Every structure is written in structure tokens, then in C-alpha cells.
């Protein structure tokens, strides 16, 4: 019973992770890629570790699995956020199908201050500025 | 266990640790720097005496029996080398007090210096091939830092080449050790000596020999692997050049001699002949390089390569006399080459340049310095009755005995060219009248001399010591040569070594 559950969870987890990998290849821009990887990979790893915990069935392993799951659930979004932020600074372009960009022009590139909507100003489009700013852009 | 075996590693280590912890106090740095070197020298002499009296000494680290733990072994060759490290360490430490600027001192110069000594001593004492790799790395990283410390442009450029090429050598060494473990399953050199031929196919042993030859050949700076040496030796402060010149290539040569007398002796007609060939080419390439130089230290650096050829020649001939010649040559060269580099610092202090074209007039103005250069310079050129002559004599005699006339001719011819190089340096830096320089640069020199720490006297003290030794090793060559002969006998007869390490196990 435990073995079956474990095997099933493992396959599910692996499937999710494989999906994440397919996603990172197939998705059109950085942000959509992150959408797939962050979620699928996190869920996938969660499944696999749970599978391991069930398989071994000891506290030691459970604690370890839990530790990894908590870690991943905590760190993956933070990492995604950091990358997204950096991507905005160095001007990684959005997919052409993106219908709206509330962030556009909200970053002060020198001070790193990010304006909120309360102070939303209709500043001129700053795509040019973005394109220039990053040496590694594209 | 014989405490003398571990002291040459522990003394510099503890000194360096204390130096690391007291980086704020300059006086302490200097005092500890010299005191630690002096203690190491004493320990080195103690080890040498101990080995002379009691034969090859071994100590099992952690009390684990060989070949499982790491064994420290000192045969005469090792003990001689360790004593030399102490001597050179002391000389250069004193010289450093008078010549190293306060910024370098504050950033750990003395600590790095002692770690270098530790690595070198470790390499000389270990009986374990992987542990040898570790000591090589200790020595290397310390030398990297000493070379780059100060961050001047030339230093950095030289250091990049030095670091890269030495790391390639390390990678090759590591590769060879890995393969060696893969065929023999053990790391203790005595154990390897016993088992390598049993466990591996003979061709594999020879191939391994070649790998070690190249790996150590880079460190020893043989042709055509020596490039790091002329690219870097002249870039750091003089004290660093001097300690490098005295010790670094010696470690490569030591390792080469060790493995090619203990492990890889099954096909000497191939391996040792290759060494002999390379030795000859190294002599020639080095001396030609020296001929092409106009910078004092660079000329010495290229010459260094040439002399590496001589030290290798003894191994290539692979007879008792030849190895004794190599050992004697090493003793001679450590003392003399260090001294010559130290002297470049004095001439630089006096004349403000390392460029031979800008030097001159020292013969009249500073006869003492001239004499102090003359002795090691002409010793290096093999002029009797200084130490270098007997070193060459033994090698040439061994070459003739072995009927290797080509290498004898090369050694003799290169000896003449060495004489040419040294005589030219002598004529340029000492005999030639000082070139007319603008007053401003002269003032600059005076200013620099005044601002640098320590007096000329402290600078000259180690030089005098080493020069006196050069003369003594020449005039009273017998005890030294007898020592070298006994060391060579031990090398030629590995059983003694194996017995000392493995005890009754063999």
C-alpha cells in the first residue's frame, strides 16, 4: 500500500517536473517560463519527497522531506521574484502577447525605488531606457 | 616517534597562525617572522643530525600503521632539503625585515612566507603521494599570494601565468595520482614501490612515470615546460624572488628524484634517458634565455632553468655518483641562487633599477657588494674552488663514467655560456662606469632608500652568510659531498626507505 502510494506520488511528481522542463522550453518569454517552472517544479519536488517519506516511513526521513518541502516552497517564489525584478531592471522584454504592463516605468533605475499604484504617474513609455540599461539584455 | 619529523611542518604552521592572529602589530610580525624561521632552521639541523645518526626516520601520523595512515619519512635527501629550507628561510626572513614594505607586512607577508616554508617542508617529508599533492598545493597557494601581494601590474601579469601553468601542473599531478590509485590501490610511496609492479601492467607504470615527469617537470621548470618561471620570478619584491629561486623548483626536482628513484625504476632506459635528454635541452634553453636578457633578475631567472637541467642530469644518469652530484648541486644552487637574487635587491637599492643597462659603477663604489656578487656569480658559473665547481665536477664525472658524452659536452658548453652570462652581468652592473642619470632620478633613489625600512646592513647580513657558505661548501666540500653521497646511496637503494616506512611488513 505504502509502496503503491509512494510510486504513484513519485510518478506524479516527476510528471510535474517534466512539465516544468517542457514549459521552460516552450513558453515564449521569461515571465511565462517562470510561471511554469516555479509552480510545477515546486509541486513536483513536493510530491517526490512525500513519496520518499512514505516509502521509508521513518521520522528522520519525514523530517528531511518536510525540511526540503518547506525550503522549496519558501525559496522558489523568492527566487522567482528576484529574477523577475532583475529582469525588469536589465530590460528583458515581455512576450508580444502580453496585454498589459502596470510595472512599466514604475522603477527608478538609479535608486531601485518601486512606485506603487497610489503614486502611479503616467510617465512616458520607458522601453528605450530599459533597452539601453542592461549590458546583458538579450 | 621522532619529533623532528613533524616540527618542520608544525613550526611554520604555528608561526603562521600566530602571524595571522597578530596582523595588527608590525613589530610582532617581524619578530615572529624571523624567530619562526630560526626555529625551523634549528629543527632542520636537528632532523639532519638525527637522520645522519640513526638512519632513515619515519613517523606514522595519527598512529595509524603504514600504508593506511600518512607517513612522514626523512631520508638524508629529505633531511638535507629541510635543513636548506631552514637556512634559506632564515636568510630571507632577515632580508625581508629590511626590505618588505609595511603594507605587505600588514597584509600577512610573513604568514604567507611561513606557509610557503611549511608546504615545502611537508613536500620534502611526506611519504604519501597524495599528501605530496597537498603540500604542493600549500606551497603553491602561498607562492601565488606572495607573488601577487602588492598587486603591481607586472606582478599580476606574471602571477596569471605562474598560477595558470602551475595549476595545470597540479591538475596533471592529481590526474596521475588518480590513475596511480586506480592501478595500485594504495598511496603510500613505500607501499607503491612494493606493489606497483605487481598490480599494474608494466606499460601503465611507464605511462604513469611520464605523467609524473611532466607534472613535476612543470614545477621544476624543465624544457619545454618552464614558461612560468621567466614570466614571474622577476616581478615580486626581491625577497620573494629569492625564496622562490631557492626553494620552488627544488620541490619539483625533489619530487622528480623521489619518484624516479623509488617508484618508476622499471624502465630506466626509457624514462631516465628521457630525463637526460630533457636535462640537456633545459640547460641549453635556459642559458640561451639568460643571454638574451638585459634585466638582472630575468637573466638570473633564465639561468635558473639552465641549472635545473644540471640537477636533472644526475637523475637522468641514474648512478650513485650522478645522484650525489645532483644532491650536491641542489645544495649549492639553493644557497647561491637565493643569494644572487638577494643581491639584485641591494643593487636595486643602491642604483634604483634592475635594468643592467642602468646599473654600473658598483665595483668602485661598493667593493664589498661587488665581492658579494662575485662569489655566488662565479660559483654559479662553476668556477673553482667555489661550490658550483664541485657540483658540476661530480655530474660530469658521472656522465663520463656512464659514457654519456653528449650530455657531458652539453653540460660543459653550457657551463661556459653561464660563465659568459655571469661575466657580462658583472661587467654591466659592477665594472661598467655608472651611466649618467638625471639628478631627479638619483634623488628619487635616495628618497626610496630612505623610506624603505631597515638598513643596508640588515640587507647584507644574510647575503654575507650565504656567500661565506658558498665558499665553505667549496673549500670544505668533503663533508658536504660525503653527505650527498650517502643521500644518493639511500636513493639508489630504496629497500632501506621501504623498510623504514613499512617496518617488518614488507
Amino acid at each position: 500500500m505504502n509502496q503503491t502510494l509512494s510510486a504513484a506520488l513519485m510518478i506524479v511528481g516527476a510528471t510535474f517536473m517534466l512539465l516544468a522542463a517542457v514549459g521552460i522550453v516552450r513558453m515564449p518569454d521569461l515571465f511565462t517560463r517562470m510561471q511554469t517552472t516555479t509552480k510545477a517544479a515546486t509541486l513536483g519536488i513536493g510530491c517526490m519527497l512525500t513519496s520518499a517519506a512514505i516509502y521509508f516511513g521513518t521520522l528522520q526521513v519525514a523530517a528531511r522531506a518536510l525540511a526540503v518541502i518547506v525550503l522549496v516552497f519558501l525559496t522558489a517564489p523568492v527566487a522567482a521574484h528576484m529574477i523577475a525584478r532583475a529582469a525588469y531592471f536589465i530590460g528583458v522584454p515581455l512576450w508580444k502577447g502580453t496585454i498589459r504592463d502596470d510595472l512599466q516605468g514604475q522603477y527608478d533605475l538609479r535608486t531601485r525605488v518601486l512606485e506603487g499604484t497610489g503614486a502611479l504617474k503616467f510617465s512616458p513609455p520607458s522601453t528605450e531606457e530599459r533597452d539601453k540599461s542592461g549590458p546583458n539584455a538579450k | 616517534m621522532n619529533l623532528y619529523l613533524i616540527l618542520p611542518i608544525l613550526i611554520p604552521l604555528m608561526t603562521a597562525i600566530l602571524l595571522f592572529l597578530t596582523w595588527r602589530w608590525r613589530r610582532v610580525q617581524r619578530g615572529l617572522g624571523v624567530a619562526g624561521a630560526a626555529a625551523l632552521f634549528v629543527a632542520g639541523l636537528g632532523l639532519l643530525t638525527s637522520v645522519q645518526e640513526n638512519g632513515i626516520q619515519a613517523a606514522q601520523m595519527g598512529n595509524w600503521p603504514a600504508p593506511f595512515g600518512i607517513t612522514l619519512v626523512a631520508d638524508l635527501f629529505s633531511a638535507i632539503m629541510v635543513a636548506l629550507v631552514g637556512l634559506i628561510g632564515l636568510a630571507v626572513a632577515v632580508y625581508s625585515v629590511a626590505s618588505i614594505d609595511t603594507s605587505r607586512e600588514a597584509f600577512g607577508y610573513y604568514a604567507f612566507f611561513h606557509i610557503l616554508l611549511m608546504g615545502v617542508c611537508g613536500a620534502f617529508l611526506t611519504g604519501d603521494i597524495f599528501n605530496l599533492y597537498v603540500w604542493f598545493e600549500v606551497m603553491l597557494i602561498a607562492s601565488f599570494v606572495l607573488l601577487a601581494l602588492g598587486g603591481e601590474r607586472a606582478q599580476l601579469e606574471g602571477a596569471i601565468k605562474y598560477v595558470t601553468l602551475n595549476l595545470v601542473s597540479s591538475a596533471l599531478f592529481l590526474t596521475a595520482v588518480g590513475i596511480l590509485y586506480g592501478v595500485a590501490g594504495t598511496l603510500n610511496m613505500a607501499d607503491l614501490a612494493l606493489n606497483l609492479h605487481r598490480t599494474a601492467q608494466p606499460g601503465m607504470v611507464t605511462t604513469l612515470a611520464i605523467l609524473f615527469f611532466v607534472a613535476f617537470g612543470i614545477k621544476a621548470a624543465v624544457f619545454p615546460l618552464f614558461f612560468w618561471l621567466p614570466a614571474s620570478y622577476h616581478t615580486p619584491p626581491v625577497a620573494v624572488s629569492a625564496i622562490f629561486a631557492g626553494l620552488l623548483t627544488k620541490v619539483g626536482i625533489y619530487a622528480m628524484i623521489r619518484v624516479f628513484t623509488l617508484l618508476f625504476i622499471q624502465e630506466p632506459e626509457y624514462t631516465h634517458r628521457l630525463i637526460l635528454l630533457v636535462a640537456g635541452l633545459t640547460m641549453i634553453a635556459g642559458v640561451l634565455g639568460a643571454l638574451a636578457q638585459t634585466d638582472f633578475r630575468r637573466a638570473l631567472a633564465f639561468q635558473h632553468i639552465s641549472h635545473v637541467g644540471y640537477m636533472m642530469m644526475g637523475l637522468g644518469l641514474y648512478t650513485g655518483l650522478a645522484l650525489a652530484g645532483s644532491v650536491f648541486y641542489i645544495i649549492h644552487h639553493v644557497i647561491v641562487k637565493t643569494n644572487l637574487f638577494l643581491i639584485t635587491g641591494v643593487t636595486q637599492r643602491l642604483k634604483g633599477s634592475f635594468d643592467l643597462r642602468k646599473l654600473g659603477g658598483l665595483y668602485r663604489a661598493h667593493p664589498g657588494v661587488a665581492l658579494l656578487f662575485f662569489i655566488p656569480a662565479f660559483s654559479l658559473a662553476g668556477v673553482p674552488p667555489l661550490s658550483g665547481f664541485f657540483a658540476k665536477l661530480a655530474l660530469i664525472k658521472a656522465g663520463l663514467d656512464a659514457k654519456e658524452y653528449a650530455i657531458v659536452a652539453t653540460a660543459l658548453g653550457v657551463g661556459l655560456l653561464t660563465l659568459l652570462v655571469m661575466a657580462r652581468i658583472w661587467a654591466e652592473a659592477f665594472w661598467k662606469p655608472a651611466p649618467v642619470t638625471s639628478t631627479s632620478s638619483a634623488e628619487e633613489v635616495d628618497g626610496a632608500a630612505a623610506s624603505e625600512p631597515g638598513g643596508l646592513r640588515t640587507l647584507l647580513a644574510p647575503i654575507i652568510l650565504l656567500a661565506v657558505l658558498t665558499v665553505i661548501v667549496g673549500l670544505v666540500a668533503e663533508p658536504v659531498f660525503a653527505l650527498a653521497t650517502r643521500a644518493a646511496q639511500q636513493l639508489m637503494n630504496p629497500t632501506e626507505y621501504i623498510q623504514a616506512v613499512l617496518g617488518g611488513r614488507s
Partner: protein
Amino acid sequence: MHILMPFVIGALYAAGIYLLMRRSIVKLILGLAILGNAANLLIFTAGRLTRAHPPLVPSGATQPIGTFADPVPQALILTAIVIGFGVLAFALVLVHRANQMVGSDDLDTMKSTDT
């Protein structure tokens, strides 16, 4: 895997060496890093690959049970990894400072000490 490893390691050596021979100091350091990995992997492989237990003594036992991987190459590699890390860090900074000093990352511009 056993038969693949020599080829993988050979490829890593080739890549590392090729990178060393480039003009860019960055590639040089990359090459050193790859070479270090390759050498470690070589030791690992030379010590024989075994799909076996890690060299641990299970609780309740006084010796590892069954076949276990040879711990010696592992210990050697650990040492080598650490040394490699220290040395690589230093090399990186060295190269960085040289780049600052010379104002170029092209090794061909750094030959003033040889000629």
C-alpha cells in the same frame, strides 16, 4: 555508466584545456574550473564506480554491511575539491585585479613580463 565515464571525463578534460587556451581571462578561469571537476571525476572513476552503499557504518553494526563504495577516493576528492575551491577563488580575484589593472580581459595584452 562505467564505460561512459572515461569518455565523459575525456570530454571534460578536452573542454577545460581548450578553454585554458583562449585569450579571454574569463574562459581561462572557466577552463580551470572544468579541469578541476574533470580531475576529481577521474579519481572517482579510477577508484572504480560501484553502485553500492555509501561508506557508512549503519547503526547497530561495527562495519559497513555488504559492498560499499571505496571511501579512499572520496576522501581524496573531498580534499581536492576544497583545495581547488580555494585556489580557484584566488585565481578569480587575481584575474579580476589584472583586468582592472590592465584594462582588458584579453590575455594577449598581458605579456609585458615576458618580452
